[in-house]
């Protein structure tokens, strides 16, 4: 399953907390023109560096599919940062 929601949270030294919920599919749709450009740039890079483009796309797809469940939390004295992918 592709990632559906990315949660980014942080706490500033003054104790101010913020949590940002990013729905992946709508964000990808909004950024789709940039994504198309990124894919084209990637394909050109594959041709330059002699990497099979299909294999690279499949590999990136596998990484994306495996992302749900990833969590990273860092807390240091008064600051904190958290990223969670669901």
């Amino acid at each position: 399953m592709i990632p559906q929601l990315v949660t980014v949270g942080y706490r500033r030294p003054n104790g101010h907390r913020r949590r940002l919920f990013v729905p992946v599919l709508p964000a990808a749709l909004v950024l789709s023109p940039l994504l198309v450009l990124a894919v084209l740039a990637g394909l050109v890079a594959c041709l330059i560096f002699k990497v099979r483009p299909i294999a690279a796309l499949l590999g990136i797809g596998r990484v994306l599919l495996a992302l749900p469940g990833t969590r990273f939390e860092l807390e240091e004295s008064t600051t904190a940062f958290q990223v969670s992918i669901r």
Partner: protein
Amino acid sequence: MNDQGRQILQMLSEGKITADEAERLLDALGRQQPEPAPGANPRPKTRLKYLRVVVHSTEDPSGPTSVNIRVPLQLLRAGVRLATLIPPQALTKVNESLEQSGVPIDLTQLKPQDLEELIEHLDDVTVDINDPGSKVQVFCE
């Protein structure tokens, strides 16, 4: 011995089969139900999904530090497969840089199947470091 083995011996004692036939039947039964290896775990192995890294440190005078990372093992596998796409020229350059840094590892010798096996056996890895000021745990769940 299981019921089928006893049944064969019973048939032998009753004279229904010869000793040779009994031997052949017992051999066939042994092949059908192989004995578990002496060191093998009799319990079915549960499929672990995540690699966890947990760090708690109180060494910093400004306050405690904690890191909590959960990475799906599937992501490690996907990353390893993606890494196999690195062109050989790039690997050679990486090898040279590693050697200059004092890490003589030949990345061209790392085969995808070896890396797969490495990821598979991460299930069994548990690192537990208890220091007076810090605690580090690496395990799968």
